[in-house]
């Protein structure tokens, strides 16, 4: 059947070309979404795969002899006297214990004694000493203790260190790994879940296996507390004024542009502000959660104000009119009617603001939170007032660990990121659920 020249049933050449270009354009759009999704997946898998090891840790089970002659020469078990024996006094005990284990399992190795002892983490000595000082009765007998294995041995059992890489590494050797494998086969060395990662404080450069997030998590919690206590009331109060009371004029216009701009000011600038105003001018302490919290408060305020204003705006004017109509004052209509109705929106915005603050790093570097902190900060102390003691924060701890030479810290940094992302995911999911639960259509 032949069709007329301008039949609709035949697709003209030009139309075919246009359809092809349509398909290309559409494919570009789909590809863009694919790229974004792929980036997200690669990002998450790369961080998670390199960080999941931090949640596992290799331990060596040792039976350690505690000779009285070395640890408590007076024999009186007086803690003050015993404390005079430093970690140097304890170190040989661990080495001997491991040697004994190696012999007991029946491993023969050309490895010198020092390198065998080197399979134990340098942190283990302090663990042992603390344990003995806490239980002076143990001296004179033997104690069975799980001690941390060295970072390289730990890395071997997590696949980070291989025989090839060990051959090039001055801190370990393929032979040491072989011995470690034999010990693991005998059940002396074991890799298991590592809760210490979430509770222990940071450790020094040589001991990635001992480093934990405890201090950082606590520091972050302190800062979040400061942000919540300051940013929420100030943000809500400011939004109420701007949305409900402020006259519409150039000044309120200026404030509006100002707030939008503040939301887009680079975070590092807030760090400079914190350094100059809170530390140099107001004389608050460097590295303290208080200063960190104040800086993050100022950063979070625009977010909270913008979302609170949106929440207030979404309450229909009829509610205001109804309240005013029964003789309530403007202030009463706001606090009794509008604010409760806007509360879910405000809360959602606040949680999202807090999540942003929790992940913020750059400004905290400038106010000295990058310092190496081994002690848990107290919420209050006489010397440092409220939240004044040096602390660090989760994201800063990540940065700190990326700057260290030992590759064991890369794993720790990724592990810390996983922890941070879990916190953020929980907060964001809470915000989403809150919005779903209380979403209101007027």
């Amino acid at each position, binding site marked *: 059947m032949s069709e007329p020249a301008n039949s609709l049933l035949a697709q003209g050449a030009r139309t075919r070309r246009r359809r092809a270009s*349509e398909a290309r354009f559409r494919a570009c759009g789909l590809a863009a979404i694919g790229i974004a999704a792929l980036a997200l997946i690669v990002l998450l898998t790369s961080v998670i795969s390199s960080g999941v090891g931090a949640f596992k840790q290799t331990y060596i089970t040792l039976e350690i002899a505690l000779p009285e002659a070395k640890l408590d020469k007076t024999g009186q078990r007086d803690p003050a006297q015993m404390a005079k024996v430093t970690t140097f006094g304890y170190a040989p005990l661990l080495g001997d214990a491991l040697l004994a284990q190696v012999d007991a399992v029946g491993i023969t190795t050309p490895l010198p004694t020092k390198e065998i002892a080197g399979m134990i983490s340098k942190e283990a000595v302090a663990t042992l000493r603390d344990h003995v000082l806490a239980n002076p009765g143990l001296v004179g007998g033997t104690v069975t203790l799980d001690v941390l294995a060295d970072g390289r041995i730990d890395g071997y059992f997590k696949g980070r260190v291989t025989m090839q890489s060990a051959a090039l590494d001055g801190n370990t050797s393929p032979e040491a790994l072989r011995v470690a494998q034999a010990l693991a086969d005998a059940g002396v060395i074991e890799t298991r879940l590592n809760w210490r990662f979430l509770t222990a404080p940071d450790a020094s450069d040589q001991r990635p296996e001992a480093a934990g997030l405890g201090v950082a998590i606590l520091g972050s919690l302190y800062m979040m507390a400061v942000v919540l206590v300051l940013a929420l009331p100030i943000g809500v109060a400011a939004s109420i004024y701007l949305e409900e009371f402020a006259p519409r004029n150039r000044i309120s216009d200026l404030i509006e542009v100002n707030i939008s701009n503040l939301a887009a000011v680079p975070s590092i600038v807030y760090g400079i502000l914190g350094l100059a105003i809170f530390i140099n001018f107001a004389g608050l302490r460097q590295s303290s959660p208080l200063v960190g919290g104040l800086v993050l408060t100022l950063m979070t305020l625009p977010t909270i104000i913008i979302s609170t204003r949106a929440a207030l705006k979404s309450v229909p004017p009829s509610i205001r009119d109804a309240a005013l109509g029964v003789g309530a004052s403007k202030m009463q209509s706001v606090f009794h009617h509008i604010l409760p109705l806007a509360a879910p929106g405000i809360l959602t915005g606040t949680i999202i603001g807090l999540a942003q603050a929790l992940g913020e790093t750059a400004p905290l570097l400038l106010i000295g939170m990058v310092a190496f902190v081994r002690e848990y900060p107290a919420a209050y102390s006489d010397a440092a007032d409220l939240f004044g003691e040096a602390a660090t924060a989760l994201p800063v701890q990540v940065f700190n660990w990326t700057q260290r030479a030992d590759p064991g810290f890369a794993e720790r940094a990724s592990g810390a990121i996983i922890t941070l*992302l879990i916190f953020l995911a929980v907060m964001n999911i809470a915000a989403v659920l809150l919005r779903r639960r209380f979403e209101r259509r007027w």
Partner: protein
Amino acid sequence: MMWVFDTILSLPVLVIGLAVLAMIGAQVRARLAAGGDLRRLAALPRAHAVNAALSVLIPVLACYAALSVARMIGRQQGAQILPDRTLFWAVLAVALIGCIDAILRASARFRARAASEAWIKALLIAASTTAILTTVGIVFSMVFEAANFFGQYGWRDFFLSTEWAPNFRGNSALGILPLLWGTLYVSFIALAFAVPVGLFAAIYLSEYAGPRLRGIAKPLIEILAGIPTIVYGLFALITIGPMLRDYFAQPLGLGDSASSVMTAGLVMGIMLIPFVSSLSDDAMGAVPQAMRDGSSALGATRSETIRQVVLPAALPGIMGAVLLAASRAIGETMIVVLGAGAAARLSLNPFEAMTTITVKIVSQLTGDTDFASPETLVAFALGLTLFTLTLCLNVVALMIVRKYREQYE
């Protein structure tokens, strides 16, 4: 009584005590004036109590804040003014005056509710000034130290020199140009990646995708915006950097550094995708459906409609989105600290390590800092430059977005 002075902490207890006293006093006086019939009062006794508490607490807060700032300024000038004891008595006096005044004012005709609302309004206004104070604080914190810096180091050398070589023994070369170049180069690569991807993603989401795909893809892309920059930094450091070095830079003979402009730029580009896409999505969503109908009724395909009608109409909004993304890129810190490197360099090779303004702000202000040396103070001049740059971008972007929003409302 000397224990009172032992710690400044006893001050809050005293003030709160006075506030409670004022509340009780004002309420009792109001009730007495009512003589058993509350209808004779201009305000409920509860309103009297609230007003009394506020008349104590708000002046105390204001007084304490003012004196503390005065004290800090004094310390800045090297003088120890207003010792704790003075502060204590001054604040206590204010609290006492407020307390007595509130109690005396309580009468049958006193409109306590209006008075307390005036106090609350004052608080609200004070809260909204924090936004302005923050901006003022940002400007002041940088202007003074930057001026200090330019006193020691010529502004011409700073803005026009192509060499950056700080030396803590003095005689540093502190030219901003290599840093500015690094900043702009990284931002350019980031935008060159993020703008097409973000824009096409927005086009697909707003014009093609059904509700199901949109419901999945949009939040997925927005997750990228919620990931902290330190995570992107680590991603650049442990994944993208080594990958680019091993598969591109080294085979092509372009360098063997894992941290490079390309590394930082690409990762930053990923971070910026949601900024571009969600604002562009909004902008295209604001284009009336009637425009699309008009175009497709003329026989335009969807892509023709998008390219020739929707995009031109949404252009201002998209421009705003791009400018805001550019401002983000210029001010981004952690990705470049971990991904771009620390060497100040003027080079065209994107696989070479370069550095940015933000990286140098961090490196000059962390560690041992001496606030008298130009090597430290230069950070404030850098900060001021950065702030000015981003401020201009933000304001222009916000103006465009705002004006555009009005157009279709």
